[in-house]
């Protein structure tokens, strides 16, 4: 795998600012896209529905969170609540007879509205206090959702999601659901890739680096923070809705509790702040690695004849998950995305390492 810059000459600005200026990136994206499309035939049914599909949706949600956290530099400890609002709105919408597509967008919009209200309340403070106030709002949301039967769906607090109908067609096959998830994930990714190249993206970064300095050069920091909150809430809301329709098939308050918010944060941090590919890595690591390690531990234990209690085994994934966060922060605080970028930068000029700036 060689990324080479040699021999690439851009003759106009458009080429220089293309989404993927380096051909190999384009090739790689092509291959990944093909793989994504062929996934239903490549992966087993179990792998597809329980790993690949949720991974894509979580990656989309992580991208949404990364928009506020990585690009705009604003905390959000209540992102799961935002996703939950999207999910509940969409499910209630479809149950009320609204077409699926519209209901999902409505979910996104509802999440946006709540997100903006969140933001109006929270953006008066920064740093730790922003983190804590969003965290508190998450608790309030949790409480409201689980204490209002009209929302949560009665005593058992589970609300069945109706079948997904895209353009009037029922989508129930595994492949169909997968493609819905893939489509959404691609949409978010392309949006984020383009965001980097727009004035909005640059303004967000300016706000992140120093909001009052940004204000001095004429960037209205509050406005941009609000836009960031709104956009990312929309992404979160729709992701939450799609997650429920394609994966969970029923919605409960625990699916969007504070722990999930923290998990999302972990995805962003482990993947790398403001890194798109990192969000994919982060989602994969946080979703998959703890389980895999657990199996590894169980397998090794069996191999060595050691007897590990069920209870012990049950908590190992959580421990791995915590260790993962700590480890990444110690080794490379900018996350896996940065590690990838390091390798890529190294290869770009290999073997002329000294040519790097």
């Amino acid at each position, binding site marked *: 795998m060689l990324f080479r810059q040699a021999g690439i000459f851009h003759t106009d600005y458009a080429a220089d600012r293309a989404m993927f200026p380096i051909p190999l990136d384009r090739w790689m994206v092509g291959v990944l896209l093909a793989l994504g499309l062929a996934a239903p035939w490549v992966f087993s049914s179990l792998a597809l529905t329980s790993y690949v599909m949720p991974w894509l949706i979580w990656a989309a949600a992580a991208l949404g969170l990364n928009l506020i956290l990585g690009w705009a530099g604003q905390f959000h400890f209540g992102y799961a609540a935002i996703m939950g609002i999207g999910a509940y709105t969409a499910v209630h919408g479809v149950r009320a007879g609204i077409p699926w597509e519209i209901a999902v967008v409505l979910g996104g919009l509802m999440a946006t509205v709540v997100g903006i209200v969140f933001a109006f309340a929270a953006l008066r403070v920064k740093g730790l206090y922003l983190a804590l106030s969003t965290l508190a709002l998450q*608790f309030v949301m949790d409480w409201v959702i689980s204490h209002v039967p009209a929302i949560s769906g009665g005593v058992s607090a589970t609300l069945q999601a109706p079948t997904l109908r895209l353009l009037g067609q029922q989508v129930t096959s595994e492949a169909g659901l997968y493609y819905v998830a893939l489509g959404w994930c691609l949409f978010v990714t392309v949006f984020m890739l383009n965001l980097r190249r727009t004035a909005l993206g640059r303004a967000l970064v300016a706000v992140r680096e120093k909001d009052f300095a940004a204000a001095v050069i004429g960037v209205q920091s509050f406005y941009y923070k609000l836009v960031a909150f709104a956009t990312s809430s929309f992404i979160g809301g729709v992701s939450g809705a799609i997650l429920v329709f394609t994966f969970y098939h029923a919605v409960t308050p625990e699916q969007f509790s504070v722990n999930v918010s923290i998990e999302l944060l972990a995805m962003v941090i482990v993947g790398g702040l403001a890194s798109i590919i990192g969000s994919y890595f982060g989602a994969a690591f946080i979703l998959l690695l703890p389980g895999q390690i657990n199996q590894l531990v169980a397998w090794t234990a069996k191999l060595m004849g050691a007897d590990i209690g069920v209870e012990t085994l049950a908590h190992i994934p959580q421990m791995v998950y915590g260790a993962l*966060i700590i480890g990444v922060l*110690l080794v490379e605080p900018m996350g896996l995305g940065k590690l990838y970028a390091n390798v890529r930068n190294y290869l770009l000029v290999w073997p002329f390492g000294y040519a790097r700036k």
Partner: protein
Amino acid sequence: MDLTYLLELSVNGALAGLMYSLVAMGIVLIYKSSSVPNLAQGSLVMLGAYIVLAFSNGLGAPMWMAIPLAMAFMFFAGMGIERLALRRLAGRPIVMILMMTLGLDIFLRAGAMTIWGGSGRPMRIGISDDPLFLGPLLLNRAYVVGAAVTLVLFAVFVLFFRTRRGVVLRAISDDYMASWSVGISVERGVALSWALASVVATTAGVLWGSIQSVDQSLSTLLLKGITVGVLGGLDSLGGAILAGILLGVLESVASGYLDKLLGGGSRDLVVAAVLILTIMIRPHGLFGRHDIERI
């Protein structure tokens, strides 16, 4: 409504609130010295309790010995955590520092569950269950003990901050650069504050553990602790004490009346509301300091 009932709720709430202050004090100690908001304080409380049990049940030490042993253990554990996990991140954006403490929280909690299992264990420190009456008021004996310990510990800290070492810690919390310039080892001071916070956490773990039993729910005291910390001002120990009482009373009285209306669970709602309102209205808390502006 019934005045005695209200009074009883208030007094018991204030006592329980002082025990939240104990959790908050750990957070304040660390925040004061290094501006790190320690979201792992709840897990330290839990860990402290488990370590006490490990010394008493595991190694068979009597309680009066197990507790100091556990405190000593946690003293060094706290130092180690600072050394290994936090020091590397000094100067990094706050998001990474917060995430690190969250990661520690998850790791410590799951680690404790892995080792000791998920079922609750009793912590017996010899507080009797007999009712305690103050006039017509029925008090919770364990809360009385907890509140008393908190106040004693607070007094100890007030005195400590007047000693030479305490003054040095306060100097560090004022200005890192100036501290280095006169030969103060800032790193050692910050490590000491983590160590002290871990000892305080152990105390909290013993007291709360004796009330509710030792399990992972001890780590959820974090939310109460941080709310008290923010309400009192994250760099004010005295603030933590008063805010604890305030939150305790509010929580107890509000839930005493609201629970019937809302069907339970209003305690957490009160805590979240206090947290939000504090941040909205007075982010530096009741006694947190703004930097002194000279007139």
